[in-house]
């Protein structure tokens, strides 16, 4: 009987203590409430919440705060959100919405895998592009290509980049948020940003002379100008021994034909 009473006392004393603390919390939550800015809250709810830093702010919240306090007037800074976010932000802030820019995603401008590209030596150091780049700008003969050691894979915040197993990496366009971190960390600069809806793409960055490029890589752009001269409406422009596609004015049929005619087959369909 005595034991049972002890249990009862313990139960009652703990309950009283708990009620007392609960009441304290209830009062505190009213009295010490931090006033949250509703405007900021709504802006945050529109933003994707990845805290990727593309907008040049450290987090989505700080971007939202800057917009709410009118220090930032550009609503198109959020690339992962795309134009949905841009429109929503413009509506909420009641500002002029600029051109709806097409969403940009990263692509690897290199097809020189282990089979296609020549290697000058075997790299044995820490498996990271940055370390490999210190040594003669990488083990590939071509100094513009992908080193395949995955600086971008490690730094991608959404795991959109994967190793292919053939000495290259591949960007998954569905997952890519266009944060450009891979573009920043790639030591050879082989990652490029292109519109997400682009159909064709020159997968090479080599500005070496045609002869050298041909020696070093089977799939390197040799600047032969076939795409530019034969298919005038295709939008390909060759400069510095490298073909570039301008995505604004393009005739798709011409691009398809140019791709088929490209001798090293470095114009690819996405």
């Amino acid at each position, binding site marked *: 009987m005595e034991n049972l009473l002890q249990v009862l006392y313990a139960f009652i004393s703990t309950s009283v203590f708990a009620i007392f603390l609960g009441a304290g919390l209830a009062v505190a939550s009213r009295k010490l409430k931090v006033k949250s800015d509703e405007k900021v809250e709504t802006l945050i709810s529109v933003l994707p919440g990845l805290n990727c830093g593309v907008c040049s702010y450290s987090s989505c919240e700080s971007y939202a705060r800057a917009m709410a306090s009118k220090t930032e007037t550009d609503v198109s800074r959020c690339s992962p959100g795309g134009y949905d976010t841009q429109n929503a932000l413009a509506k909420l802030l009641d500002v002029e919405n600029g051109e709806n820019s097409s969403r940009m995603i990263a692509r690897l401008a290199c097809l020189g895998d282990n089979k296609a590209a020549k290697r000058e030596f075997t790299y044995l*150091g820490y498996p*990271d592009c*940055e*370390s490999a*780049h210190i040594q*003669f700008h990488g083990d590939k003969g071509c100094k513009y290509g992908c080193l395949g050691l995955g600086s971008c894979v490690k730094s991608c915040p959404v795991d959109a980049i994967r190793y292919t197993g053939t000495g290259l990496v591949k960007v998954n366009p569905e997952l890519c948020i266009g944060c450009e*971190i891979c573009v920043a960390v790639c030591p050879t600069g082989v990652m490029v940003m292109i519109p997400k809806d682009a159909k064709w793409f020159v997968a090479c960055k080599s500005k070496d002379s045609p002869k050298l490029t041909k020696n070093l890589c089977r799939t390197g752009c040799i600047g032969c100008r076939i795409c530019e001269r034969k298919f005038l409406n295709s939008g390909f422009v060759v400069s510095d021994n490298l073909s570039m596609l301008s995505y604004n004015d393009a005739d798709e049929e011409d691009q398809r034909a140019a791709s088929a005619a490209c001798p090293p087959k470095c114009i690819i369909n996405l």
Partner: protein
Amino acid sequence: MSRYQTFSRGGIRPPDAKYSTSKIGIKTCPLPDVAIVPFLQHIGTQARPTVKLNDRVNEGQLIGEPSSLISAAIHSPVAGIVSEFRSIFLPMGIKTDAAVIKRDRNIHSPIKHEENHDWQSLEIEELLEILKWKGVVGQGGATFPSHIKFSIPKGHDCEVFLINACECEPYLSADHRLILESTEQIMEGIKIVQKLLNPKRVVIGIEANKQDAIEMLTAAGTAREVEVVHLKAKYPQGAEKNLIEAILGYEVPSGKLPLEVGVINSNVGTLFSVYEALVRNKPVVERVLTVAGGAIAHPANVRARVGSPVSSLIEECDGFREEPVKLVMGGPMMGFAFNNLDTPVIKGTSGILALTGNEVNTSATTPCISCGRCVGVCPMGLSPTTIFKQIEHERFDEATKYGLEDCVLCGACSYVCPAHIPLVSAFRAGRGRKRRLAARRKK
């Protein structure tokens, strides 16, 4: 305690491997038929070429002038014709323009350097100007232009001039041989720098494994009030911050230069070129370097022209005994691997090593077992394993907090790592990535 001093934290004792070259006199290499002279052989900006294609150049003629405040002059090592300008990679990861100079065999007599200049009557500014136009740079490996190093900024005083004769890297014995064969010249070089810096003390730090050199220096130094401090052989004694701690007992603050504590260091090789520039009126067109490693038939120290292809030096040492697994420019701990035998010797090349399979670590990397050996050997008192793990997980701000920027890249941690993790290589990657991300944020 014994009279041998050393630095307090960490350090390793790799096998010396100097015996094969330290007992043999310095050989002089024949002039190269084709010299490839890079315009960037120093820290700073690339020298501006002063010659054009197909120009005829003399031995020791200026072919590149300093292009900015931190830059150095470049001279032609041979008499001949500038046949090509090309862009080359140096093993230390630098891409630079280089002049290819074809030697003219008809000019046999090199310019005589028998002159003995009276440097004592010159003002300090004049001396520095000569150093600048003779292209003198630090020859310990960092290749910092000497005319800047030896001019003290206002508000600073040079208390101690510290001379590094440690040569703590295995295999290398070029500085050792240079001390033995040119003691007087080095002492004269010290005298010149003494005039430039006006230090209260001049101290030479030398490791105990070079007894003959210690004797020579002590004999020559006592009369000139140059102290010679014996140090216990330990790697990396020659790193400037460690050397200061080993000899003077105080530490250089993180991220600061030795001048902050009133010290200026210099390598003995640099002093020799200071002597050559000011007394002999000779630009830096040659240097002494070690050609060694298990794959070299007869390892030796050679005096070679800047711009000589590595293959010519190896030929001078009777070629390869066996096929090398790895070629290294510099010492085995901090040197850089390279694969092209046409790579030229530059002002900062302290050695060429051709290593065999036995001498190279080719074991596969295994996961870190957190044994802490790297922490024990780090001369800067860092925790390499912690920094490595932060880098592996792309946390560069944290890695910086743990001292990523304080690392001197000596390689002691990689040397002892039982998991064969290329830690130094990873730290370089971390620093590079951090810089790229910071640049992106700024944009």
